[in-house]
């Protein structure tokens, strides 16, 4: 882990002292709220719906056990005993008092942490792969470059007042776990012919109200040129980015408006104009210095297989399930990466109590060289666990209520805080996540449904990354002042496109004489290949919308109409519409796109003409297929897991492995009928998911 040098320590301590003075001046009235707001935001302090909220940076998601214990102490002493891990690998405290914040910042500085640049129009916390440095598939460790970018961007005078916030993600592995294609700048490591590492520079991606996939402006940038080149990009953005309209100020709009070629030329011209020799030399030395902090810990020489571990796998099914779902291959023989789910069934995604933080810190000390990672999926990771220790680690996690084996399954939901905490939200999102999680509480059912990413946002700012997977976006209907359920939701599918149509409609139920919200979200199929190859003809989202809408008009997606009921609603016959229970003002969210996304593009493909040709091309190219089956930025070359899951689902229960039946099942399950068949097979009659969210 990186350790602060004298300069870093003084810089952070000075900053905390400066903020203490600013808070004092605010409290005694010297500063007005208008003057104080930008100052507090630069220190990560928001005023949210119910109280202040402090967002603490966890640089590239790497935490030491000492830091995690300090976060637990802060939660107990100045907050309400818990913290919320975010999709930017940060942590938020939801109830600090203004007068306590300087003390909190001092406590953070004592463990080399801060809240600088977790808000405001500056370069935010740089994120990376949560498995950085330990992943078996990694080209090189991205953390030294993340740290270099962190130091370069911290209070950078030129880039502290950008047109809008700016987010950078780096990945060192071919399978992108850091979502680099939906960041303002995404850096993806490759090796050139000589075997030297370098970055593919992707610019102009993003989610929010205008979801876009980033475009590559440099295929290969030698690592030594990273800082000067990123500086050139920042300068072009700082100069040409729109400041007239907040909603058009992100770099993705600039890249989209002038085109990637023109943008690329501007960046190259800016880059050529400077003399970078000195900077490159300096950066190379600095990377070397930083990289020493990320030297691998003292791994033991261990055998590939541990007999004790294998015996435990046979003896204990719960443990075996956890290992299967929660561990990942480590680059060192005899070690594993252990994920810790912060998504207990029915729990709040990303929340951890102070006791849980301490438990994880203790387990990290015992089994993972004291290191913890935060994943952008709002989970924690112990990156260096000897495989032989997995069982005792698991026992410790069970005791701390942290052993839910649901990683990558339907209940591993990414959710923003939504209107329960956030002042920008238009709908609640946590209750939707909880209801879906409870509906799929049975882990065997989740395993049958298979690998499924479900993300939920409470407003179009997309903090829950709802475009990045099967997504649910909460919206407000009619000003929210109707007496009936007021949240609405719509689903988006796996493309970076909006929903084909809104999910819920206001409808008067004549029999009962009252208004209710109902309706369905059909599989909002996207046409094959539509997600990122169409940028020349308009924005990704508008193209996707056109294609989705045209499919809807053809009636492609409304033929299979099923219903899947939540646990608090009595089961009804297929075809009958259910209504909220008498006296229960509840919102119903229907999500059949879960099933559609589960089956990926296969369900969404019309079976004739050009589309069919595209489908064939698409199936014959494994890379293309993997990309379309998953969120575009979760592309894993050559990965066939999605197919394997489908095979398992298609096969009869107890039929054994998927491999022998794969092809047959895929064939049988292609087309629209796959979704209901799939769900019938796992014992669910209806495949539209309806979840009741209790009235407030």
């Amino acid at each position, binding site marked *: 882990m990186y350790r602060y040098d004298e300069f870093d320590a003084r810089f952070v301590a000075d900053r905390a002292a400066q903020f203490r003075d600013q808070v004092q001046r*605010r*409290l*005694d*009235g010297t500063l007005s*709220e208008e003057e104080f707001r930008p100052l507090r935001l630069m220190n990560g302090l928001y*005023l949210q*719906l*119910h*109280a*202040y909220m402090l967002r603490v940076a966890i640089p590239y998601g790497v935490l030491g056990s000492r830091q995690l214990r300090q976060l637990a102490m802060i939660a107990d002493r100045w907050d*309400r005993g818990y913290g919320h891990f975010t999709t930017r690998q940060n942590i938020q405290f*939801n*109830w*600090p*008092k*203004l*007068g306590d914040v300087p003390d909190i910042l001092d406590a953070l500085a004592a463990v080399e942490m801060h809240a600088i640049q977790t808000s405001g129009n500056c370069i935010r916390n740089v994120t990376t792969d949560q498995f950085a440095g330990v992943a078996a598939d990694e080209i090189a460790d991205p953390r030294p470059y993340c740290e270099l970018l962190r130091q370069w961007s911290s209070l950078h005078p030129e880039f502290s007042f950008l047109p809008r916030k700016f987010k950078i993600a780096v990945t060192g592995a071919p399978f992108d776990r850091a979502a680099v294609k939906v960041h303002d700048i995404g850096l993806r490591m490759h090796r050139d012919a000589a075997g030297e590492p370098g970055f593919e520079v992707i610019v102009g991606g993003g989610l929010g109200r205008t979801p876009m996939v980033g475009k590559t402006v440099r295929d290969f940038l030698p690592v030594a040129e990273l800082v000067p080149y990123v500086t050139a990009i920042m300068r072009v953005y700082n100069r040409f980015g729109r400041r007239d309209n907040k909603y058009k100020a992100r770099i993705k709009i600039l890249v989209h408006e002038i085109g990637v070629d023109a943008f690329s030329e501007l960046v190259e011209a800016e880059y050529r104009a400077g003399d970078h020799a000195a900077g490159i030399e300096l950066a190379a030395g600095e990377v070397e210095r930083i990289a020493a902090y990320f030297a691998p810990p003292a791994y033991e020489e261990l055998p590939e297989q541990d007999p004790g571990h294998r015996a435990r796998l046979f003896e204990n099914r719960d443990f075996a399930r956890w290992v299967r779902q929660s561990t990942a291959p480590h680059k060192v023989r005899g070690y594993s990466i252990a994920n810790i789910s912060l998504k207990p069934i029915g729990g*709040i995604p990303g929340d951890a109590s102070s006791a849980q933080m301490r438990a994880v810190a203790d387990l990290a000390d015992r089994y993972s060289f004291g290191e913890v990672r935060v994943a952008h999926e709002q989970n924690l990771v112990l990156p260096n666990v000897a495989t032989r220790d997995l069982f005792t680690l698991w026992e410790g996690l069970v005791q701390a209520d942290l052993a839910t084996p649901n990683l990558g399954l339907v209940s591993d939901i990414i959710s923003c805080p939504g*209107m*329960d*905490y956030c002042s920008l939200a238009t709908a*609640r999102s*946590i*209750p939707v996540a*909880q209801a879906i999680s409870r509906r799929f509480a049975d882990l065997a059912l989740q395993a049958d449904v298979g690998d499924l990413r479900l993300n939920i946002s409470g407003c179009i700012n997309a903090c829950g990354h709802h475009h990045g997977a099967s997504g649910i976006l909460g919206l407000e209907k009619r*000003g*929210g*002042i109707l007496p009936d359920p*007021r*949240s609405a939701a719509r689903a988006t599918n796996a493309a970076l496109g909006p929903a084909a149509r809104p999910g819920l409609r206001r409808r008067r139920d004549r029999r009962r004489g009252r208004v209710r919200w109902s309706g369905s979200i059909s599989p909002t199929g996207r046409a094959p290949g539509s997600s990122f190859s169409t940028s020349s003809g308009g924005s990704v989202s508008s193209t996707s919308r056109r294609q989705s809408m045209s499919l809807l008009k053809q009636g492609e997606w409304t033929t299979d109409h099923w219903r899947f009921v939540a646990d608090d609603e009595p089961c009804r016959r297929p075809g009958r519409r259910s209504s909220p229970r008498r006296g229960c003002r509840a919102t119903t969210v229907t999500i059949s796109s879960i099933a559609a996304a589960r089956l990926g593009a296969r369900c969404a493909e019309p079976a004739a003409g050009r589309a069919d040709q595209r489908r064939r091309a698409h199936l014959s190219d494994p890379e293309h297929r993997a990309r379309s089956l998953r969120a575009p930025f979760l592309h894993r070359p050559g990965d066939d897991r999605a197919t394997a899951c489908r095979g398992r689902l298609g096969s009869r229960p107890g039929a054994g492995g998927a491999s022998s039946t794969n092809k047959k099942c895929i064939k049988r399950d292609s087309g629209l009928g796959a979704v209901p068949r799939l769900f019938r097979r796992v014992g669910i009659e209806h495949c539209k998911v309806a979840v009741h969210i*209790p009235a*407030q």
Partner: protein
Amino acid sequence: MPKIITANHLVVGDVVFLAEDGWTPVVDRAVVADDDAALQHLLDRANQAEAANIVVGPYAVEIRREGGRIVPLHYREAMRTRGPTVRPDLGHQAGLGGRP
């Protein structure tokens, strides 16, 4: 439409409502303005309180009366009177005897 004034307390950050005798966390104690003149009077008081560094960002909220209780019309505002719906142990609802 009757209205009340709400804001956040500067030091604590909690949601507060303008009452006869100052600011209160209990929405039922808020002063209700039934017409524009009364509302303007309340807004003037609220702006003075903001200038005096007691509260932050005061604004008016439409409400309806339900058997002596005050209920904001918008669900966002209704939620502000209570706390997060997913954590009934937090926010004003925790200190109000489990008031829905």
